[in-house]
């Protein structure tokens, strides 16, 4: 089984969010980047488990400039066999999906694993766009995957529950919590990762269909009113008369 895992670099979740250049650009001074948790904890690990059972190789691919090599090395340390970096600083989901699709076409992959969304821009658009560009079936927000006799059985999130589906390969899926248990890279993995291949691939020409023109932080007046814990009637009164929410 040949598996491709798409990994994104994301802003660390406790980072202070601020913008620069007249609020047109995220200010990443002093900000730490991590591997997107959905990719690291669930998607990559489930891909590795599948390979351990079925044989084959797990490749990881990341659209990013050289600053994303740190997260790529981590993926190799966790156990991926080979890595590719498409040399482009990603700006929009359509651009990223296009690069990934062009790359995937050049390989012979049976399953492409992605994460449900990146924890910074939260678009969740790359996985379905990728599937449409390849014309492969897509199963989104997957929390369980079984593979038997060339057919995948998956649990995917739906409104108010989960749906169990069967899908044929090749397939694009996006991972969410419960798909696998996080693996921490060990010393041996980290050493081996240094010798594993990391190939840089040239990006292809494309014109993004959207652009981010500015950012803002929602203003919220957080003037707090404390209510006596003995007097919950007062809280109910405030919620109904002042906040008008009940």
């Amino acid at each position, binding site marked *: 089984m040949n598996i491709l895992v798409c990994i994104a670099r994301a802003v660390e979740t*406790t980072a202070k969010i601020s913008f620069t250049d007249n609020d047109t650009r995220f200010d990443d001074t002093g900000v730490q980047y991590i591997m997107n948790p959905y990719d690291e904890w669930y998607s990559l690990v489930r891909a590795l488990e599948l390979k351990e059972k079925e044989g084959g190789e797990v490749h990881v691919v990341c659209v990013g400039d050289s600053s994303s090599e740190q997260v790529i090395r981590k993926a190799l340390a966790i156990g991926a066999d080979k890595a590719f970096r498409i040399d482009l600083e990603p700006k929009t989901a359509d651009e990223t999906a296009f690069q990934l699709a062009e790359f995937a076409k050049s390989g012979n992959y049976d399953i492409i694993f992605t994460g449900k969304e990146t924890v910074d821009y939260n678009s969740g658009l790359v996985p*379905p766009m990728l599937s449409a560009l390849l014309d492969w079936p897509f199963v989104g927000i997957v929390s369980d995957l079984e593979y038997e006799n060339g057919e995948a059985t998956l649990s995917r999130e739906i409104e108010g529950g989960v749906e169990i589906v069967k899908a044929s390969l090749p397939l694009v899926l996006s991972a969410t919590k419960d798909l696998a248990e996080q693996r921490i890279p060990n010393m041996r993995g980290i050493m081996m990762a240094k010798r594993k291949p990391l190939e840089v691939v040239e990006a292809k020409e494309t014109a993004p269909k959207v652009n981010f023109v500015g950012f803002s932080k929602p203003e919220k007046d957080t003037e707090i009113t404390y209510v006596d814990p003995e007097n919950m009637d007062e809280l109910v009164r405030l919620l109904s008369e002042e906040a008008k929410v009940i």
Partner: protein
Amino acid sequence: MSILVFCENIEGTFKKNTLEAITYGRKLAEQTQSPLAAVVNGSPDVEVLKTYGIGKAYLLEGSNTGDSASLAKGIAGVCSKVDASTVILTYNSTGKSIAGQLGILCGAGVVNSVNALPSSLEPFQVSQSVFAGKAEAVVEVPGEKKVLGLQSNSIKIEEAPVDTIDTEIVTSDGGSRVEVIRQDKISGGVPLPEAELVVSGGRGFKGPENWNILEDLAGVLGAATACSRPVSDSDWRPHHEHVGQTGITIRPNLYIAIGISGAIQHLGGVNNSKTIVVINKDPEAPFFKAADYGVVGDLFDVVPRLTEAVKKYKGA
């Protein structure tokens, strides 16, 4: 060029977030003086759509609802039929899977988690939540075609009745590379993503055996229940209730956070709620900084008291 709204229906009913998407589409149609149409899967009673201003509905036949690619292809077919400039979808698990595919099929620019009407029509600019609700981005779509995924509770549903609704069946070759085996629905309760009132609990509850305290309050309020991540990680509560950066993002009218410290990753998922009440025994808990109303006290005393107070208020 028309405005098309994908009207998802679940077992024949149009949920709140679909009605929000219709209201959004109708307002956009008015602003741009474009015709408005709906595209509908399954076989619901489309007559109800008249109430919200839909006079034309395309009924998808042959698309396999469990296969997002099949649905996206069906919708894309209607898009070219009505020469749609903009398609509105709900930003829920169905819409999230379709929006990106639809964008590729129609050659449209896609904006997800849209939280307001466009701030400008020429050029087309609309705002979207990013960084798990901690910030907003203004996204410009320069091309003619757009797909927008609308976040719940971003617009107030409005009625705008029309007299008749004209329906047309559109058959699409569904294909079915994904086949539904079964659905496991969580029965009862208010679905969290679209709830207007939410009661949420954290590690302060000590264990799942104490959740009835929270459920009693949610019950009298008619609220949905939610939790912090450690709570779902410890299997005290199901994963789909976990809100925050790695869970779901919600923006209800009222969010009551009980025994939750207010870590930045948690706040990210809830800080766009209209009103936030925090109940915590630690006056230094960071959540108080984001709260509108605060109660410093032991949840095991305060919450039952609050439940009684709500009962009294509702009974009055």
